[in-house]
């Protein structure tokens, strides 16, 4: 833990009693009070997360758009200023470099928000494919603190702190919005399956912004939340987590995320590989027997291994235990599976994803 990188909120986490863990080289709280309590707070009221470990890469210049069209699987055509779009960066073989959110500031300037542990890899990947483009690629990750305020009461909590309007539409954002007097980029995005906002401010302002939002949220049941709840929340919403549902060996098509792959619209790195029908598919499973399917456990059909659990957890909102698994495409429409839990076959049935969807 001594060698871990610290976000600008490190002292805040210690002060709030966060249980600090090593998350991909970052010292971050897995929980403050209880994962279950923090999870419930986000579903019923609101939760505040430090996600400053996420990376921010700015791509700018005359050819920024053309360059991004080459490296992103999604199509940025028609993306307006102040709007966000989810996309993948893929290898030639279709394997996933990362999943990212692209913020279009203007025609020649795009902020790419990437997974923490992939920041350096993504930055190098982008730079190595930028030859011949008039595009400047800057890793600005250290400049930002990033907070996520998530939950049905997020708007009520945040609006009174703002000198200006919050972004109204999902996947839109505003820049230079003063929140508690601190200049922020605020987007209506998140990773919990709830309404909410992500706020980017100068690294030095992160702790003050966190304190101001936490104070404002006191009357609304807002809790500071750690990575544990962040994971169970995204899991219920069946959102992929890089390193689990997506890896260098798993294509986004296999992960069932074709909505952000536009092979018909344009050429891009990985396009050819993503045209071929996937050999494996991500499915959702509800555990029928007693036990918890964990990442890495084998999935069985008819007693034979057909895949592997990519994420598995109890669902605090729904009750019961669920799993996402990557299985051979030929069995992906079957109904009954089993999970090999320490040598015991645990019964599971295929269910639709997301497991949880807000009404």
């Amino acid at each position, binding site marked *: 833990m001594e060698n871990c990188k610290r976000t600008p909120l490190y002292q805040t986490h210690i002060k709030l009693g966060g249980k600090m863990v090593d998350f991909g080289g970052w010292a971050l709280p897995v929980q403050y009070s209880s*994962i279950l309590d923090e999870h419930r707070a986000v579903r019923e009221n609101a939760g505040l997360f430090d996600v400053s470990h996420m990376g921010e890469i700015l791509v700018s210049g005359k050819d920024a758009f053309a360059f991004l069209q080459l490296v992103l699987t999604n199509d940025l055509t028609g993306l307006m200023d102040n709007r966000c779009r989810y996309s993948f960066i893929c290898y030639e073989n279709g394997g996933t470099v990362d999943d990212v959110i692209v913020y279009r500031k203007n025609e020649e300037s795009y902020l790419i928000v990437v997974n923490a542990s992939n920041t350096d890899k993504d930055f190098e990947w982008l730079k190595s494919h930028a030859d011949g483009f008039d595009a400047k690629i800057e890793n600005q990750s250290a400049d930002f603190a990033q907070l996520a305020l998530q939950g049905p009461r997020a708007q009520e909590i945040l609006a009174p702190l703002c000198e200006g309007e919050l972004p109204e539409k999902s996947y839109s954002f505003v820049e230079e919005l003063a929140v508690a007097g601190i200049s922020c980029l605020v987007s209506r995005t998140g990773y919990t399956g709830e309404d909410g906002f992500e706020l980017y401010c100068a690294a030095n302002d992160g702790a003050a912004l966190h304190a101001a939002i936490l104070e404002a949220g006191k009357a609304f049941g807002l809790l500071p939340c750690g990575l*544990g709840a962040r*994971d169970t929340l995204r899991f219920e919403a069946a959102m992929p987590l890089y390193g689990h549902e997506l890896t260098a060996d798993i294509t986004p098509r296999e992960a069932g995320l074709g909505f952000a792959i536009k092979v018909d619209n344009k050429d891009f790195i990985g396009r050819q590989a993503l045209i071929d029908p996937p050999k494996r598919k991500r499915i959702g499973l509800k555990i029928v027997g*007693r036990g*918890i399917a*964990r990442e890495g456990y084998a999935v069985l059909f008819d007693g034979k291994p057909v895949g592997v659990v990519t994420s598995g957890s*109890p669902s605090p909102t729904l009750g019961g235990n669920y799993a996402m698994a990557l299985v051979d495409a030929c069995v992906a429409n079957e109904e009954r599976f089993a999970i090999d839990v*320490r040598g015991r076959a645990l019964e599971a049935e295929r269910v639709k994803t997301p497991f949880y969807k807000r009404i």
Partner: protein
Amino acid sequence: MTPTDRKYTKEHEWLLISGNEVKMGITDHAQSELGDIVFVELPAVGDSFAAGDSFAVVESIKAVSNIYTPLAGAVVSVNDALEDKPELLNEAPYENFIAVFEVGQVDESELLDAAAYEAFIS
């Protein structure tokens, strides 16, 4: 407060020894480190274990944790209540055992008393 009526292991189990019968559970430190406990896999009555074997599995939201017996023996009863209420291990770890063992011989030389265990975790 660590109860002084029992012994402890460095793997954070407690043992309440009464003759050849030994009740085993997990310590307050263990449940606190695990966080919300959501599943307990109990052994079956009659199962035999060697010293150092894992006899149960306790799972929190994020972690899977094996529970080890420091003494060889056979399971004579289990705490069935944990199947429906695994959170009892969070709420009252010293009042909720996991299993009771019948052991041949109790060798306490490797076990810690309450003071030594407290020193170990501090």
